[in-house]
């Protein structure tokens, strides 16, 4: 086992460390994907792992995402615990059928006799100035799909633990990596136990005037918004969902019951986005506590624009605060 000492790691390196742990802890863990071997992945998240664990454990695959997931299902049936990398969000749709028809349903249809403990690692979201199909936020597709779990870290510490929790889970997990936060750094204590189970949300900042709910790449934006609001005398509580399916609505509801106001922010189109579910669920749980409707801030219902426009598409601190202002004005 690796030495357990706290050290500052980027999120990319924290995931790498988590994968390394998983490979060390269970010889049945295998990594599969395009360019994950010698290259270490286009974001270097798997850097060095093929060198250390060999080509049988870290498998460079043909360029065929549907079969990457399909083959992983077969390997899982054979007793392996595959961790699949899809290179970018926009390339996961090719594998959608294997994920939705096969992976998500296998446990149910076999009445629990076939487990498919597969983790699908998926860098997602915009904000890196990329070309088309490299800035998608497909989380709602997976969260809506019964049989899948969906989690996403917002920081290196959670990334380190969540990826391992995803891998050891006996359910298929879509592990969404907020690619524009890959280079965010934090102190990661590799020896520490995870502070929370995989499916729990976390209050990352306490406050009394409104609850700001987000996940993945937008958590940092929300924390910055909360800090800015504090200067204006508004106290905002920020909840990092961490798990998108299932949603830890109790943690959100507990916060909203205190603040009476709720804003949900994400990059994806708000129309049927995670914010819609949070709004519907929170309103049901907190109907008499709410001073204002749950407001949503997110992407517009248009295909992701060319990168020179993405700063308009992606909600930023100002748009988040605008929504907070609107909810406070109710």
């Amino acid at each position, binding site marked *: 086992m690796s030495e357990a000492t706290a050290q500052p790691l980027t999120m990319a390196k924290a995931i790498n460390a988590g994968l390394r742990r998983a490979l060390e802890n269970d010889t049945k863990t295998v990594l599969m994907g395009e360019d994950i071997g010698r290259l270490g992945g286009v974001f270097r998240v798997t850097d060095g792992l093929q060198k250390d664990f060999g080509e049988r454990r870290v498998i460079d695959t043909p360029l065929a995402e549907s*079969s990457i997931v399909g083959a992983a299902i077969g390997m899982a049936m*054979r007793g392996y615990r595959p961790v699949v990398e899809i290179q970018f969000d926009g390339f996961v749709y090719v594998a959608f059928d294997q994920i939705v*028809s096969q992976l998500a349903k296998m446990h149910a249809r076999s009445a629990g*006799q076939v487990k498919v*403990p597969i983790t699908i690692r998926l860098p997602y979201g915009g904000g890196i100035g990329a070309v088309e199909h490299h800035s998608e936020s497909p989380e709602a597709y997976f969260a809506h799909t019964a*049989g899948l779990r969906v989690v996403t870290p917002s920081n290196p510490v959670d990334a380190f633990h969540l990826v391992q929790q995803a891998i050891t889970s006996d359910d298929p997990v879509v592990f969404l990596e907020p690619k524009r936060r890959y280079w965010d750094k934090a102190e990661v204590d590799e020896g520490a136990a995870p502070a929370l189970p995989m499916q729990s949300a976390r209050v990352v900042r306490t406050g009394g005037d409104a609850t700001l709910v987000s996940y993945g790449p937008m958590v940092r934006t929300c924390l910055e918004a909360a800090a800015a609001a504090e200067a204006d005398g508004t106290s905002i509580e920020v909840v990092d969902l961490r798990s998108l399916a299932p949603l830890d609505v109790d943690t959100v509801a507990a916060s909203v019951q205190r603040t009476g106001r709720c804003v949900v922010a994400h990059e994806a189109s708000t129309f049927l986005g995670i914010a819609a579910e949070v709004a519907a669920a929170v309103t049901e749980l907190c109907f008499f506590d709410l001073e204002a409707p749950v407001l949503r801030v997110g992407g517009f219902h248009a295909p992701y624009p060319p990168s020179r426009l993405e700063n308009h598409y992606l909600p930023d601190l100002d748009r988040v605060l605008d929504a907070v202002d609107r909810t406070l004005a109710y």
Partner: protein
Amino acid sequence: MAIPTHAPDDTFVQLLTPEGERVDNADFPLEVSDDQMRALYRDLVLVRRVDAEATALQRQGELGLWAQLLGQEAAQVGAGRALLPGDMAFPTYREHGVAWCRDVDPLTLLGLFRGTTNGGWNPHDHGFALYTIVIGDQCPQAVGYAMGMQQDDADSAVMVFFGDGASSQGDVNESFIWASVFNAPVVFFCQNNQWAISEPLERQTRIPLFQRAWGFGFPGVRVDGNDVLACLAVSRQMLQRAREGAGPALVEAFTYRMGAHTTSDDPTRYRLDTDVEAWRLRDPLERVRSFLHKQQLVDDDYFAELDAEAEQLAERLRTGVRSLPDPGVDAMFEHAYAEPHSLVERQRDQYTRYLAGFAIEDAR
């Protein structure tokens, strides 16, 4: 074995003619004992009986649907009996004959078509994966399973089944690539029954399907799919070479779907009775029966006993199907996830309370 590069369209491996004559094939020698021959015939007869009974049960409303295998018994029994216990088979929705060879109780299959389960057997116990309905999805899975065998240094192989229609799906072709690139121990067994529901073979390919393998760098063989011996011999050899590390192969079993696509289908809308009649002369059971007769391997008692056994089996299915337990409501929630899931638990609780409400109302 070199990749065959020439094969006139109408040649295939045949070891037993429609008239019941045993012929030799230098590439695919096969020794079959008399006992084995009788056992194969028994398989064919019982599998056909299961199929007929299931079809009848569907007509009587006991099943929602049935996908008939009529005409494809030899292909399935030949392939199925070539598998060894350590091997793994990945079926479509029509491989009742393979299921038989893998000791899956036909009654379990009926459950699936009755709607009491979406599976019903343990794939690990039987070396037989669950049925797959989305065309082609099983193929990449089969290759992944074979890659797992490779990693385990297992002396086993995978056989994956699909149809002529399925050969057009991206996943099936991707699986050819993976099998080839990883040299995975997998045999692709394509039952070319000439139809994909109403679409004839010409809608899926303009060359014989076994030649598809040439584009991927592994052998393709066409076999008389109505000849159980040929299917057995070719499957056995291809499986063995896969087990020995020689990589994948494609077997095209050239056969015919004598029935409808499923009990919901009406083939009179799209095909000629005369075609069906022509194929009836190549019946997969008749030729074995002729052979057994001619070789005097059996007497009339044998056929009578087999008929009785078939009748007993059918009777067991008839009574069994009616007493297949409906699944409990809990099953729906229970198996959605392997580990506790807050949303599903909440929904289960709510729904349980809701149902209990009715019980209370009923009690009033």
